[in-house]
């Protein structure tokens, strides 16, 4: 295995009975990346993240996380990979300081001093009881505890779900500032695509168990072309078969179209090339058939 690859999945398949939760999923995560995992509810995001930490047994394919088999080497793996599941809770009766003590006893690579240092960034005091904290503070405390583990991979399943905008910002600030050091990688699933787009180096998009896109943001900007254009040329743009047409907000030409690969020169001349946004690409690639019948 390439030592620079923290995750390597080849033709990964997971079934729940007759349902294919993941189907032929292949991707890699090198070190030093911030990878966004996007998909509608039920697309397979949580299943994929669980498979990475050995909580789900793949029916097909190969999976190596930090060079280990997650099912077989789960205990060793969790020493070097942190995971916050979407259903994560901290015991309500405990004080934050108790949790630091607990983690020190449980986890060989956990640093209590580091956890206290990380908590100082937040408004959480080690003497606070979990039940006295707001939802945003609980998530911050949880991140501080997990980020105090000297690990190489952080796996976060919908970490900011239900948090207000300031708590989400504080969460990601701490993640980027305290965790990402160019060697460690983060894999984070979310629905708040537009919020974290600029944070990501790569994106994985799941649609009904299939990986429809695995690309770096840099390559995405090269491969996908968004053309901002006036309503008067809408028909000519549509004739060039874009993946998606959409209306854009005030201060823009009002209309835009998204192409996979640059369309012909005469089409490009109808408008102005802009950066494709991840949300628009997400809508184009993961549409659900029943929602696909609206026309301009």
């Amino acid at each position, binding site marked *: 295995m390439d030592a620079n690859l923290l995750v390597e999945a080849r033709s990964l398949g997971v079934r729940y009975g007759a349902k294919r939760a993941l189907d032929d999923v292949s991707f890699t995560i090198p070190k030093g990346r*911030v990878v966004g995992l996007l998909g509608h509810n039920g697309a397979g995001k949580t299943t994929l993240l669980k498979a990475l930490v050995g909580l789900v047994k793949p029916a097909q394919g190969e999976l190596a996380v930090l060079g280990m088999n997650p099912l077989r080497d789960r205990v060793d793996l969790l020493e070097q990979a942190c995971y916050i599941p979407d259903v994560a809770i901290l015991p309500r009766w405990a004080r934050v300081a108790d949790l630091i003590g607990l983690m020190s006893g449980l986890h060989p690579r956990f640093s209590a001093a580091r956890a206290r240092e990380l908590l100082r960034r937040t408004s959480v005091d080690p003497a606070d009881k979990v039940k006295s904290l707001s939802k945003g503070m609980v998530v911050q405390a949880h991140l501080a505890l997990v980020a105090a583990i000297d690990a190489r991979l952080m796996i976060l399943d919908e970490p900011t779900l239900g948090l207000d*905008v300031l708590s*989400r*910002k504080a969460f*990601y*600030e*701490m993640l*980027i*500032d*305290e965790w*990402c*050091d*160019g060697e460690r990688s983060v894999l984070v699933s979310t629905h708040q695509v*537009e*919020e*974290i787009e*600029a*944070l*990501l*180096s790569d994106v994985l998009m799941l649609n009904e168990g299939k990986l429809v896109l695995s690309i770096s*943001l840099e390559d995405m*900007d090269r491969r996908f072309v*968004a053309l*901002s254009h006036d309503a008067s040329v809408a028909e000519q743009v*549509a004739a060039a*078969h*874009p*993946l*998606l*047409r*959409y*209306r*854009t*907000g*005030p*201060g*823009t030409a009002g209309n*835009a179209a998204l192409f996979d690969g640059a369309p012909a020169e005469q089409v490009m001349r109808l408008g*102005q090339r*802009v*950066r494709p*946004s991840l*949300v*628009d690409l997400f*809508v*184009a690639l993961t*549409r659900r058939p029943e*929602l*696909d019948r*609206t*026309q*301009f």
Partner: protein
Amino acid sequence: MVCYLSNTPLGHPMQQTWDQRLPIYQQLADLLAARLLDGDPPEGDAMPSVRALAGRYLLNPLTVNRALQALGDAGLLENRRGLGLYVMPGARARLRASERERFLATEWPRLRAHLRRLDIGPEQLRWEENA
């Protein structure tokens, strides 16, 4: 083909709004250059770290690296081995010179045309803010 109403270009309260027409690293470089012009940080001082900037602007560290690289290429920052990036002596003067050039070449003709259209002459322009 799908059609829907996009609200992305309106930006989001969580972060700096980035213009869709330019690469984000370029916009960050412009933003940092504008702060350097205001003396933040002053010449000879250290730039904030990549991680601090990435946290502040909620950007991927690779994007921040590219922006700092661009400022280095423009002769505004220097890499002191083992210490990080520092603001070059003379960076503000150089920035001001290139900003003046850009203003006179691109912004002033537009502004002049606008003033003519509105029939505003030099005698109507007050230079003291509270006059």
